């Protein structure tokens, strides 16, 4: 099936006109500077980046072996596709992008399929107010508290009645436990940041990507060669499967370079 393409000509306001909400608020660097999160690991201490010269071949091989995260997503729900989440008109994209990454990590590890409830995370962080934030904030919360299944906190619910001990006991099963990397870099280093994102995606590690141009946070699944020598990302959005190509799109050119990015590597086992 053809990809749904978002490129430099795409007007972000077009999505607003369709009633699609976003919710990215740029990170408060004075309060939460890069690498300050509990459990975060400095990239340079961990991972050599995969050189750009290898990207094209690796992408082709991953397509051929159907070993991309998008391929894994397509069979994640007991052989059926993992449906994309739905932030339902509220500005909680920054929690949905991280939740999607946790679900993708579980799928890659072949853990039982569970739909998680990002509204629980956002409600808890902002005391049930509909407010924007950035992906790393929800990543930090999920590394400390986890995220509950939808059977404990129904999707899109803002009800305080679900904010009970049992819910958060369940959430602990879905904690991010180790080594999530803070890929945020200064604007002048953004090319480097994209190399790190690409390395993660080629390693089948989903990445939470915040885009200021879009005012939106999404989960990146695959590195894509959009034209010879040019690369973008295939993202999983939180606007249901009716948007894009089954909830996904390919970001091209500058649109693909995130302003903030972080990645969970290890989650609680099941």
């Amino acid at each position, binding site marked *: 099936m053809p990809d749904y393409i978002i490129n430099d000509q795409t007007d972000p306001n077009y999505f607003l006109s369709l009633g699609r909400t976003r919710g990215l608020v740029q990170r408060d660097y004075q309060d939460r500077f890069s690498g300050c999160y509990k459990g975060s690991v400095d990239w340079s201490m961990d991972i050599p*980046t995969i050189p750009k010269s*290898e990207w094209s071949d*690796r992408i082709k*091989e991953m397509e051929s*072996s159907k070993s991309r995260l998008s391929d894994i997503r397509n069979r994640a729900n007991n052989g059926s596709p993992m449906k994309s989440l739905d932030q339902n008109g509220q500005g909680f994209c920054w929690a949905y992008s991280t939740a999607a990454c946790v679900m993708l990590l579980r799928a890659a590890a*072949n853990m039982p399929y569970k739909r998680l409830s990002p509204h629980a995370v956002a409600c808890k962080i902002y005391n049930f107010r509909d407010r924007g934030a950035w992906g790393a904030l929800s990543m930090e919360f999920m590394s400390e508290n986890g995220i509950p299944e939808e059977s404990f906190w129904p999707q899109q619910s803002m009800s305080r009645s679900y904010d009970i001990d049992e819910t958060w006991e369940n959430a602990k099963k879905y904690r991010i436990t180790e080594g999530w990397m803070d890929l945020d870099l200064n604007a002048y280093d953004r090319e480097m940041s994209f190399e790190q994102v690409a390395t993660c995606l080629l*390693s*089948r*590690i989903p990445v939470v990507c915040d885009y200021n141009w879009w005012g939106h946070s999404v989960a990146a699944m695959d590195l894509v060669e959009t034209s010879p020598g040019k690369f973008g990302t295939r993202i999983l959005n939180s606007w249901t499967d009716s948007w894009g190509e089954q909830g996904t799109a390919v970001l091209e050119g500058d649109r693909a370079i995130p302003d903030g990015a972080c990645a969970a590597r290890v989650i609680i086992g099941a």
Partner: protein
Amino acid sequence: MKLKTLGTLLCLLFCAQLNAQKFDVTTVNGSISVSNQNVIKTQIFDENKSLIGEVKEESGSVKTSEQVVKILSVDTDASKVSVYADDVNRTPVVLPSAGKNRWLIPNAQKLWIEVKIIDFEKSIFDSKRIVVDKSDLPDKDPVGPSVAPIDLPGLRVLMVVESEMIPSYPKNQMDALFSEKLRLYLNEKCVKSKGEVPDLAPEWRMMDVDTKFEDTCDLVWCKALKRPMKSLPWIIISNGQTGYEGPLPQTLDEIIKLVEKY
């Protein structure tokens, strides 16, 4: 000769000299013997061989003990070699010296180690970073075919990686590990979990070696992850009666061929 050409030549000569310098960082398993006539130091390790306590007592006799360690060795022509180690909490850890350009790495925790070499006369300036995890006694062999690594009936497969090292693993091996063909094969061959529908996940996993589990370690995968692994990526195959534990084969065909035996 034009100044620009001369500059280029000098630059090439300088780069060639830099490239010619040998700089290798290696680690090997080992152990050290500690003896003391007056003070006996006893270190206590838990079942994972993590150091959990230390007792010192006065004594008049000579006592000896043996410890498992790793030895960091730096092969370089540089005159100055510096080693900096941090633990998982980024707390600096001092590595005891073990002779020229050799250091002992305590085998109790995961460490991030940076090696810097400097020699102004030879124009050597370089650094390397490595991650060293704790390991089990080096004399433990993989489980033989007469032992089931997982004491439950049915085929179960666990593949273990260090996720932060995936970019440096052979790409064919990683393509195989995440490939649809292997996943479909394991879905078909492995037993299904006893959870409620639709949670009938086939009993195979691909996990990071540092994966944690909630509360108790009664899950089959938690127990399996605690088994000794000599290297990563690793594979554990069990049919309840017999099994295999060893390095993950390099190709998809080799992995499937290995699982087929059980």
